[in-house]
């Protein structure tokens, strides 16, 4: 299956050009770099979205419209509800401090109505309706909010970004394949005379194709490894810059499976380039007699 990779020195001399010459490896290196960065961003977004969704899935808030007045009572009700855990009260003063960051001094103004908040988690099977009723009895107007509903738009945005990243990876892969087709056709034009002589002597299309396939496979492997190394360096620097990455991506990380996917990209691109080169060369040769 891979015999074409291990050609004899005499076969390698037939094209008269050494692999790794010309722009093909560098075009593939740039494409690999771009694909790996976009793929890493997409995978990190997926990781962030998964973590946000998991965190929000069983998390709820109670908004108490009249601030501190009923906070203690509602807190007591929530804490005593069966299946409720991790109850955290956010007082009105803490809320105002938070709002000040966004609104400035206006956030601390008494004219701005600010609810008190209680956040809590629930175990599976908890009767939320009962919790809501008890809270409502303790503090009329209090509202139970599921975090997954609050975060829905954000999660949908993250999902859209993942699809955009995937589309970009596919488009860049397509551009890489197109570049390989052009490179293969260019190589065929350059070596037209040699091919004609080989055909005249009885070489098959497959024999001729193997020469080009091998050259492009080596170019693609070298280019994709260079691109992957550059992308890995950038990703490591980004990960090391925790303040930047933390703020930008919410502490997004790449898991083992993500790293395996990223590591497979240069190999997949090499395989794609080799297959495309073979198909392009065979298709072009078939137009000859």
């Amino acid at each position: 299956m891979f015999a074409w990779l291990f050609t004899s020195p005499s076969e390698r001399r037939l094209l008269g050009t050494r692999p790794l010459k010309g722009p093909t490896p560098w075009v593939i290196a740039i494409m690999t770099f771009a694909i790996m960065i976009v793929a890493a961003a997409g995978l990190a977004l997926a990781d962030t979205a998964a973590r946000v969704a998991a965190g929000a899935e069983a998390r709820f808030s109670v908004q108490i419209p009249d601030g501190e007045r009923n906070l203690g009572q509602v807190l007591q009700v929530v804490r005593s509800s069966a299946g409720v855990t991790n109850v955290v009260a956010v007082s009105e003063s803490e809320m105002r401090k938070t709002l000040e960051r966004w609104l400035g001094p206006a956030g601390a103004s008494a004219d701005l109505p600010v609810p008190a908040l209680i956040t809590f988690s629930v175990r599976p099977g908890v009767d939320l309706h009962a919790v809501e009723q008890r809270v409502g009895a303790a503090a009329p107007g209090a509202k139970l909010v599921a975090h997954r509903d609050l975060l829905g738009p954000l999660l949908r945005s993250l999902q859209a970004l993942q699809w955009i990243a995937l589309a970009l990876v596919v488009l860049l892969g397509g551009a890489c394949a197109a570049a390989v087709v052009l490179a293969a056709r260019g190589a065929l034009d350059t070596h037209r005379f040699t091919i004609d002589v080989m055909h005249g002597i009885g070489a098959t299309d497959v024999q001729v194709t193997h020469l080009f396939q091998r050259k492009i496979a080596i170019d693609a492997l070298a280019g994709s490894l260079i691109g992957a190394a550059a992308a890995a360096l950038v990703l490591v620097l980004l990960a090391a810059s925790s303040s930047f990455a933390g703020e930008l991506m919410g502490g997004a990380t790449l898991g083992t499976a993500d790293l395996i996917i990223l590591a497979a990209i240069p190999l997949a691109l090499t395989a794609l380039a080799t297959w495309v080169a073979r198909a392009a060369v065979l298709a072009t040769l078939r137009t000859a007699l």
Partner: protein
Amino acid sequence: MGLRYGTGAEVLRDLDFRLSKGGFYFLTGPSGAGKTSLLKLLYLAQRPTRGRISLFGEDLTGAARDAMPQYRRRIGVVFQDFRLIRHLSAFDNVALPLRISGASEEEVEGPVREMLAWVGLADRASARPPTLSGGEQQRVAIARAVINRPELLVADEPTGNVDADMAKRLLHLFTSLNRLGTTVVVATHDVGLISATPGAQMIRLETGSVQDPTGSLRNPPGRQPGTPS
């Protein structure tokens, strides 16, 4: 059969002849008569635009493209412009047909050295064509054409660039191959070459048609019906 390029007029028309297996033929005619086109048909670089062509007993008119290499490997060709691969050494150029046929390096080394010695280029084995003279290139081209002991040898002006002595040697090579069973077709203007080859037949082309007043090309003497031609 007939042959035209694109939408132009036919360069070969109404050709109807047979080459006897093991025959020796000289193809002659004025420039532009269609000799090179006829040779292209013989070494399967062209297909006729009408009519039929059979080689080695097989009708190749509609043969699949993938089937052509196996027939081409049975044909040796000496091109008028040599068609040597410039970046390969003389050795590698001569070895090319053997390697394409799947011969191992051990099977290539001896015959190629021997053939290069035969054409007087033993000491030029590693030279590349651009560093060889026209005559040397022609001899490399001839060595490449005959290295595989082809069943059909087609040569276009094979002695055009060599001196009289070398022309004689090359003709001797062709006749030796012919005696071993190779059918030889040589396109040439060299009357000396023709007269030095008793028993050879002439195919004269004029304005795209074969002149065959006696009908001996259409029906070679001694040819049995069904004999491969």
